[in-house]
Structures are given as structure tokens and as C-alpha cells.
């Protein structure tokens, strides 16, 4: 990449990514200097997630299908949303702590540095232990993959689903963390949408009322994280009778949410005035 990028435009686009990489390397080196603690945190993170899916699997000792979906179909939904939030959380999870940066005055320091603010906030205290979630979700998803009757177009939709789901969660993390520009100690508010969105999409949308399904499609498009593309992968018609075309709209929904998030982020940063401390 670097050897061909001589024009200033490419350099400008590449700059944030390169700085992000620099900071991530620093944090990873710091983290690995405590190997025992690191190992325990990775195991802990995997255990949390493994027990999370165990909860759903145990449900199936009392039932055969939940909302009309079997355990393996739910594993597909679970894996897709888990990988998505896992990637987003690994790359930019620190954005949740924006309120802390405001309170401690670190945001002021960051604003003086020649690296985009969002890059600095997102790479702060980058940690590899979040890989635990991605690994566990990938295993669950891999277990579900054989139930899909694979065709080239389904492979494409599956790849786009994982990318869009990561981008959607990226957008949700940034969008709802921005609330902290206004009330700096309300970090938990974002959890309702990020981790809440993750929990919600672990279940088939059919367990929720129709009104909620509509809201999750057109108001806050969380259903595009996995529900619509999974319907396509599983070859199922939409249980709510919504247009089949929605099954291909995940990238579009992701683009809209990311654009909205970046817009709100800019607004938040613009109206930010230092705490003065």
C-alpha cells in the first residue's frame, strides 16, 4: 500500500489508519508484558461468552424451537451478531469511555495532537482479550454453517453480513457513546443499544411483536445485523411478510448508521467545551 500511495489524497486517507496501527501496537506490547493476567482475561472473556451460548442451548432442553427456529438456526444468528459486535468492540470499544476522557481532561490533551480524535479515542487501551468473544462467536457460527445450502450468492451475502454487522455495531458504539458529550456520566446508556442490540439479535425476530420488528428495521436498523441476511442464507420467507429485498440491504443499513454516527460525533466534538479542570 505505502509504496504506491504518493498522492496527497491517499496519504491523507492512510494517515489515520497508520496512526491507529501505531497506537494499537503500543497497547498490545503493554498488555503482553503481564502474560499471566492476559491469559486469565482471555480465558475469562471466552468463558463469559461460552456460558452465554450455553444459556440458549439449555433452553432447548425444554423446547424444540424458539419463535419457529431451531437451535442451529439460532446459532447462525448468534454467531453473526457475536462476530459483528466482537470485531467492533475490539477495534473501537474504547469509545465508550469518552465521558471518562472528558471528566479527566484527557480529551483536551488529545485535541492538541495531530491525529484524528476518533482514532485516538478508539485505540486507547486497545486490548487483545476482546478476541475471546470473536473466537467463541466464530466457533458457534462455524457449527451452524453446514445447515446452509450454500450457493455463490449465499457466500457473498454471508461475507457482507459479517462486514455489515461489524460496521453497524461500530456505528452504534460511536452514535450512543456521543450522548456522553452532553451528560458525561451516562456511559451505561449506550449499553442498551450496543450490548442490548447484541442480545436482541441472538433471538429470532419472531419472538418480538410486529411493531418492534418494524422499528428495528426502519427506525434503528438493528435487524440488519443478522436477521435479514440469515433469512436469505436459510432460504426462509419473511415470517412478518416484509419485502424479500430487505435481505440484501444490510450494507446499506450499515452505511446509513455509520454516516449518522460520524455526523453525531462531529456535532458532539464541535459543541464540546472543556471542563476547564
Amino acid at each position, binding site marked *: 500500500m505505502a509504496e504506491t500511495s504518493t498522492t496527497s489524497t491517499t496519504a491523507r486517507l492512510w494517515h489515520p489508519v497508520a496512526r491507529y496501527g501505531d497506537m494499537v501496537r503500543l497497547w498490545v506490547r503493554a498488555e503482553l508484558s503481564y502474560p*499471566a493476567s492476559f491469559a486469565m482475561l482471555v480465558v475469562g472473556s471466552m468463558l463469559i461468552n461460552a*456460558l452465554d451460548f450455553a444459556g440458549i442451548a439449555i*433452553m432447548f432442553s425444554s*423446547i424444540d424451537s424458539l419463535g419457529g427456529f431451531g437451535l442451529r438456526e439460532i446459532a447462525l444468528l448468534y454467531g453473526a451478531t457475536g462476530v459483528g459486535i466482537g470485531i467492533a468492540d475490539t477495534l473501537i470499544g474504547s469509545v465508550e469511555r469518552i465521558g471518562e476522557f472528558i471528566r479527566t481532561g484527557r480529551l483536551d490533551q488529545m485535541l492538541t495532537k495531530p491525529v484524528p480524535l476518533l482514532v485516538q479515542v478508539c485505540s486507547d487501551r486497545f486490548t487483545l482479550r476482546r478476541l475471546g468473544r470473536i473466537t467463541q462467536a466464530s466457533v458457534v457460527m462455524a457449527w451452524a454453517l453446514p445447515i446452509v445450502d450454500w450457493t455463490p450468492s449465499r457466500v457473498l451475502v454471508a461475507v457482507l453480513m459479517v462486514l455489515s454487522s461489524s460496521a453497524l455495531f461500530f456505528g452504534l458504539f460511536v452514535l450512543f457513546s456521543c450522548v456522553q458529550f452532553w451528560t*458525561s*456520566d451516562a456511559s*451505561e446508556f449506550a449499553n442498551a443499544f450496543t450490548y*442490548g442490540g447484541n442480545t436482541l439479535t441472538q433471538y429470532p425476530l419472531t419472538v418480538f411483536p410486529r411493531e418492534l420488528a418494524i422499528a428495528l428495521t426502519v427506525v434503528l436498523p438493528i435487524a440488519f445485523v443478522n436477521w435479514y441476511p440469515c433469512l436469505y442464507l436459510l432460504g426462509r420467507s419473511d415470517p412478518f411478510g416484509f419485502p424479500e429485498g430487505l435481505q440484501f440491504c444490510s450494507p446499506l443499513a450499515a452505511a446509513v448508521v455509520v454516516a449518522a454516527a460520524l455526523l453525531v460525533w462531529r456535532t458532539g466534538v464541535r459543541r464540546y467545551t472543556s471542563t476547564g479542570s
Partner: protein
Amino acid sequence: MLHVAVASRAFRRYSTYRAATVAGVFTNSVFGVIYSFAYLALWRANPDAGGYDAVDAVTFVWLGQALLMTVALWGGGATDDLAERIRTGDVAIDLYRPVDLVGWYLASDLGRAAYHFLIRGLAPTVVGLLLFDIALPDSPVAALGFVLSIPLAVVVSFAIRFLVASTAFWLLDASGPRILTGALAIFFSGMSLPLVLFPGWLGTLAEALPFSAMIQVPNDIWLGRHTGIDLVGALAFQAGWAVVLLLACRFVLALATRKLVVQGG
């Protein structure tokens, strides 16, 4: 009374973060709604799974959201202060104060729990009552039993968190054990799924572990699944674990203190 003073200061400390409280209540409510619909679907597929009916199941969800912060299921509370003071070495100052360390932190944690029960507990329950069909306590005795079981649940949770924080005496950083224990607590307390749905030996194991004293037991008392002598037994189960774990805290602290002295504080 010293311990009452400590507890009431802890209560006031937590009550200062208003926006955080509102955000937390909102988040608890969102999770309550998600789990309610998921459980309703489960009990539609099997109307008497685990011996609960659909109303019991939804009640269980909202009681769980109400107790989540009260019993600090994920960790947190006074024991986080302790872990930090062990890491920095400030705990040495705590140890030469003429006050019992376990009692001091327990009082502080009970104050925190009282705040979380009144605010983070009650508010989502009201939301749940407005949105779903929730069962009220089965009888006045069940209501009384529930009220008695909450402080016991907090003490059990405190003792586990105290032990986890104490690992910092040896590991310096207690965040690994904290996360591991949090994961076990979520799973084995009934928070991620009522323990009545756990099959066979897994169910037996889950009900015997102290984590069940934190969510499952209080919820079952509310739902009227423990009556008469069985209710006394349920409370005794919680109290038994509370005593055993508090003794373990004492023991670990004595070990740690000796180690601390050897190193010269």
C-alpha cells in the same frame, strides 16, 4: 454506630450520580423487555417449562434486572475499592486501623446495595409492571421472606467479591479473577436462565452453589415456590453460605496479612 455511619455514607456516595442512574435504569429496562419476549416465546413453546408458567417467567426476568445491581453480579461495589487499595498498598493503612476490615467493607457494601435496591431495583420493576403481566408476591409471608432474603443475597455476593478482591494480595491485579467470577455468577445465579430449566446434574450443581443464593432463591421466594418449612430452609441455605464465605474471608485476610508483614507492608 460506626457501621451504620459507614453504610449511610456509601448510600449517599452512590446517590450522587443521577445521570448514571437514569441511564442504568433505562438499560436494565431494555434488557428486561428483550428477555421477557424471549421467555414468553419459550413458554409459548412449552407452557410449563421448569414448573414455571409464562407470568412466573416474566416476573423472574424483572426481578433479575432489579437484583442485578443490588447484588453486584458482575462485580463492583465496595470490594473494587478494596482491590485497588491492595494494588496500591493503601490497604496497609486499613489493616492498622482499630476496625475489622471485613465488617467495614461489608457495611459500606450494604449501604451501596440499599441504594441500588431502592433505585435500580424499584424503577425497572415499575417499567416491567407497566409493560408486562407480572406476578406480585404470592403471599404476605412470601413478601416478608423476599425482603429477608435480599440482605442475605448481598452478604453472599459481598463475601465472594471480597475473596476475589483478596486475590490481589497475591496477583496484584484482581481483574482476571473478577471477570471469571462474574461469568460464573451470571450463569449459576439464574440471571442468564432460570436454574429450574437446567437439566439433571447441572441443575443440581447450580442449585447447590452459592451463586443461586443471589438471584434464584430470592426470586423463587417471591414466586411462592418456597412455603412453610421450605421457606425457612431457603433462607437457611443463604445464611449458611453467608457464614461459610464470611469465615473464608477472615481466613484469607489472616493469610494475606501475614504475607504482607513478611514483605514489610
